[in-house]
């Protein structure tokens, strides 16, 4: 068992998503520190991919810019190795199947274990294909996080029963990005999940405001925010850590 459960042991979990290397790796480090200091319970670190098919415009652009700046998987591993000296809350990676596969699955997942990364989210890896990485994840005790979408319907049972770490509940159709309104009946989805598993459910996609965080945390165990944070980073660049810190605090306080 990974350490992910500890993120959900102090009330509702706030999970910020940060694209590594955007605008540069030192700023990423500073952002992580500020987010943790201001109440983040789990950090989701994006390893950029050239063609992030599940992302909206904001995170796509962060991916391209980070890669243009020369970020690589190895540099991200080094950064995490370093921050792990001071940061002890759970960390998960979010990246695409090819980034893991191409690095060598065993080499990638064993490095996760070595640098104390607790889990991995792969948006282009549905239940049917999880055997691609699951044997290595089990071997090195890295949780392969499953996602449930508004369209999952009868698939919820099989996904929930085998879920590890936490379940990523996708709030809306489409790609990542902030949304004014979330119309999916998440209550129904989460109560359906609860019939099959006790692991925590965190809602992501489209959440940006403290009001949304408050509403979503009432029906789940945690909230994941990506695009809203990346927008702050896009606006403030190297000066963004302090702004991200303030934002994390406002979200955590609302939950």
């Amino acid at each position, binding site marked *: 068992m990974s350490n992910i459960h500890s993120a959900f042991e102090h009330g509702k979990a706030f999970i910020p998503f940060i694209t590594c290397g955007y605008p540069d790796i030192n700023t990423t480090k500073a952002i992580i520190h500020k987010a943790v200091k201001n109440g983040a319970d789990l950090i989701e670190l994006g390893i950029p991919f050239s063609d992030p098919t599940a992302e909206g415009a904001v995170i796509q652009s962060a991916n391209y810019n980070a890669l243009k700046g020369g970020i690589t998987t190895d540099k991200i591993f080094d950064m995490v190795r370093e921050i792990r000296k001071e940061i002890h809350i759970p960390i998960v990676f979010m990246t695409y199947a090819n980034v893991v596969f191409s690095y060598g699955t065993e080499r990638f997942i064993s490095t996760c274990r070595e640098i104390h990364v607790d889990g991995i989210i792969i948006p282009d*890896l549905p239940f049917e294909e999880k055997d691609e990485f699951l044997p290595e994840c089990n071997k090195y005790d890295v949780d392969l996080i499953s996602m449930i979408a508004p369209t999952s319907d009868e698939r919820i049972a099989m996904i929930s029963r085998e879920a590890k770490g936490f379940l990523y509940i996708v709030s809306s159709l489409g790609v990542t990005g902030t949304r004014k309104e979330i119309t999916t009946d998440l209550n129904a989805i989460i109560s359906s999940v609860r019939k099959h598993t006790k692991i925590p459910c965190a809602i992501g996609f489209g959440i940006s405001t403290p009001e949304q965080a408050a509403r979503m945390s009432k029906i789940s165990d945690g909230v994941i925010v990506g695009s809203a944070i990346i927008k702050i980073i896009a606006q403030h660049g190297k000066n963004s850590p302090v702004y991200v810190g303030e934002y994390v605090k406002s979200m955590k306080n609302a939950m």
Partner: protein
Amino acid sequence: MTTNKAGRFGIHGGQYIPETLMNAVNELERAYNFYRNDSDFNTELTRLFNDYAGRPSRLYYAERMTNDLGGAKIYLKREDLNHTGAHKINNVLGQALLAKRMGKTRLIAETGAGQHGVATATAAALMGMSCVVFMGEEDTLRQALNVYRMRLLGAEVIPVKTGTGTLKDAVSEAFREWTTRIDDTHYCLGSVMGPHPFPMIVRDFQSVISREIKAQILERENKLPDYVIACVGGGSNAIGSIYHFIDDSCVKLIGCEAAGRGINTFETAATIATGRMGIFHGMKSYFCQDEFGQIAPVYSISAGLDYPGIGPEHAYLHDIGRAEYVPVTDEEAVCAFEYLSRTEGIIPAIESAHAVSYAMKLAPSLSRENIIVITISGRGDKDCAAIARYRGENINE
């Protein structure tokens, strides 16, 4: 429930897509498995193939080319004579009819050269469906005529500015759009790629090409060809051209990849020659990528072959040695484009010219007893401005 190993060609293929789309591809697979055996569906599709698209396409004996090259007898499978000017219509009529039976009212598609976009816009017009086509911004410029054709047919064309602004980005954007709107929308994928069941569905609809070649060549020559040659981007005309010959081990199957400025440069799109195994756009296959798995910004003069991957069934045929994949450069393809125009009076698509080029090298090494079939996947009108530009001439269309 056990893990479903659907859609594998050897180790390639699979369904590497977001959870949001899983029920959509499952629904598509169920519908396809039903309608592929439904006689009404097949009768209707055959009627569309024959009466609307103009099938069967001709198998033409290229006598002047044969004599000029002085080796094997060369036949051209004339997919360029299909309605809309390329093989793409075969797949699109099948998928549009399937989508219609599934109750979908809207088609979305990606396009590179624009031929698949034009075919999809055409089928949408024919069947009274709405249509949105995603096309790399770079490609909208080099294939401006096709953009206008799609608009004329009632489709909305959305230029994709992200990434390299080419075919792979158009595919990514079409997938994104599909996750946003699934209920009324079918993603009419244009090649034998993407997640299962697309590589199977597209192959089946395109396999009409090899079914016809086989019947036509047996009638003309009373024997099978020695070589079947087609160009490969994602690989739909190639798989269609070779599918019914896979079990005929005497027939050599050749796919011609776009080498761009050469396989020793970074400006290439030759996946088998320069790529390695990966997972992208829903499938495990070979991809042009860097050491960290970032997809490479590929290049070819041909917008239709300018894709960093290859369909999973081709990857498998390569692995087992059943088909051979060879790189052909821009320069070689342009020479073949000009050669076929002058020698046979047939202007091929620049994509198809890659296959013509390889046949030009191969034919002289064979004897008159040997037969080569080249699939001319599309017509070359769309390429004239770009080829003129390549030769330093600026013609205003």
